[in-house]
């Protein structure tokens, strides 16, 4: 099961390595990771998405995250009501006649085309996972040249 976990930490060097180490030591891959400062510049928030092969092991990882000296709080959003968002930017090549179609897909998905140049469009979208998936599905008929995602961020409702 996929878990979205937010870890609020002291904004210091080495903290990310400590946290990543708890996952990597067990051979767990971090699917996505977003880190940034909070309102308090001394505190950062990390949102980690991880595929847990074994819930018990994940439980253990969460306890161990809490045990780290620089960790302030750990929240697993999986069983909590929450919103999550991710920013995705896609560079798509298209032939002239398909321009309208591309604009239509972007429009319907709630994505924005931020640049058209030489039959290449850059599309951005901030949304939940399902919607992003739908957009990427729709873009498959074009030639996707580059794709960058920010990693998921989340907040309880």
């Amino acid at each position: 099961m996929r878990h979205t976990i937010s870890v609020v930490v002291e904004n210091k060097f080495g903290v990310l390595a400590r946290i990543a180490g708890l996952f990597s030591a067990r051979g767990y891959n971090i699917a996505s990771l977003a880190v940034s400062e909070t309102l308090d510049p001394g505190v950062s928030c990390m949102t980690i998405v991880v595929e847990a092969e074994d819930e018990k092991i994940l439980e253990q990882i969460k306890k161990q995250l809490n045990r780290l000296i620089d960790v302030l709080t750990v929240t697993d959003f999986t069983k909590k009501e929450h919103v999550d968002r991710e920013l995705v930017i896609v560079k798509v090549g298209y032939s002239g006649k398909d321009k309208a179609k591309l604009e239509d897909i972007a429009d319907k998905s709630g994505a924005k085309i931020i640049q058209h140049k030489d039959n290449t469009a850059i599309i951005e979208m901030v949304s939940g996972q399902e919607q992003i998936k739908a957009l990427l599905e729709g873009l498959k008929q074009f030639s996707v040249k580059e794709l960058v995602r920010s990693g998921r961020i989340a907040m309880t409702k």
Partner: protein
Amino acid sequence: MTGAKILIEALRREGVEAMFGYPGGQVLPIFDALYDVKDIRFILTRHEQGAAHAADGYARATGKPGVCLATSGPGATNLVTGIANAYMDSIPMIAITGQVKSFLIGNDAFQEADITGITRPITKHNYLVKDVRELARIVREAFYIASTGRQGPVLIDIPSDIQMKETEFIWPEKVDIKGYKPTYFGHPGQIKKAAKIISASKKPIIYAGGGVITSGASPELRELAEKIQAPVTWTLMGIGCFPATHKLSLGMLGMHGTAYANHATMEADVIIAVGARFDDRVTGRIDKFAPNAKVIHVDIDPTSISKNVNVDIPIVGDAKNVLGQLLEQIRKAPDTKEWLKTAEGWKKKYPLAYKEKKAIKPQYVVEQISEITKGDAIITTEVGQNQMWAAQWYKYMHPRTFISSGGLGTMGFGFPAALGAKVAYPEKTVFDVAGDGSIQMNIQELATCVCNKINVKIAILNNNYLGMVRQWQELFYKKRYSHTCLANPDFVKLAESFGAVGIRVTKKEDVKKAIQKAISTDNVVLIDFHVEQEENVFPMVPAGEALNNMIEGLA
């Protein structure tokens, strides 16, 4: 004040009386400052690993953080095993390392190693000091973190330019770490629930671990056991937390525990686990472990609870406090007469035993050390058969008298640990019960002991094998003794070459005399006991078997 002097002043403020280490290029400013220090005893070991284990042994003997110091690169990496060892057994330790100059870090400078990176998973916390103004605070925090909550090693890496930089010495009044607030008292609701379950139990057992020793909870543990009339078993780390001769004592449980402790644990209806972590060497096959028991688990580290076994009543808190709370809350003692009778029956039916022979039995040697020192010595061990025999056959009466590498199982630990313990308690007899394999892993510390008159006694149970591995090869690998037979040096001559006293014992009737002579000799003494070569440690729960499925065979 320079960074180096700040470091030493900070150590002084933390009450450090002894430290162990080895000099090198990137700690020269610290060693220069140490040159004038009279109130901290500095012990120069012959290997950084020796320094780390000595600091660890010092910490286990005293309860105070042990301090070790090494230079950057190889000095620091040589500490790594010692740090991992302390981490696995939750031992408070401060490891201080020199680092290449700040502006060279990351450049593959001479003797550079990313020691904070390397030790991240084996320290409770670690620091790279980037500003001399932070040094005093960091040392203060490091000691606080190492010695509170679930204790553990903390490493401080100090680049040599920081050691030379000048700033004012400001000692922080108190420590405030936002993300670190250990829980010391048990939740009252949980205490109530636990008390109820204990009162209603018929077959309770107390399973005590190293946490009891760390928190100084032995008196409370004894009071609880006597109040509820529950038998007490303990882990390797828990040895000494309860007097071995007490009528409620069952001895150690687990892979090489007593049969009666293992049977009682498996049959219990309530297990009161205190400061123990249900290690795989303790539980045996986990899905068959204590099938009828409700588990009450007291531990200061929430991470330990429900990690291996499912716990019915988790209580996070310091063992001493929680046991005190429990004692207050338990109004009615359970009726355990029948249960104690059953346990007594197991004790009679399956006693710890070995077959007497003409050859010297290793168990006999440990028994004699026990009798001669009357349980008052500090015993350290190496790892393997020597460790298990030292655990089984010495009657420990007091906490902090058994010092052994539990979690990591580090061969070569016992001798430098004995050195550390002896520095802490020069008036006590300190014996390292060793194997002929293990002792060679840090034998160089003989020089440290002799030079500094740290008169440790070493009892090598010499069977010419890496005995525990050989035992597994005998039992599970068709006696294919692959690379476990040793060609040993002449240990007596070896001891003598260091300026220590060596005694070789090949006859059973000379065992006692040798031990007495070692104790009365005012020097480091190594006794090379030539013991039965293919003796095995029994009972034994084979790996992956249920705890009551023991090989009993008398060897």
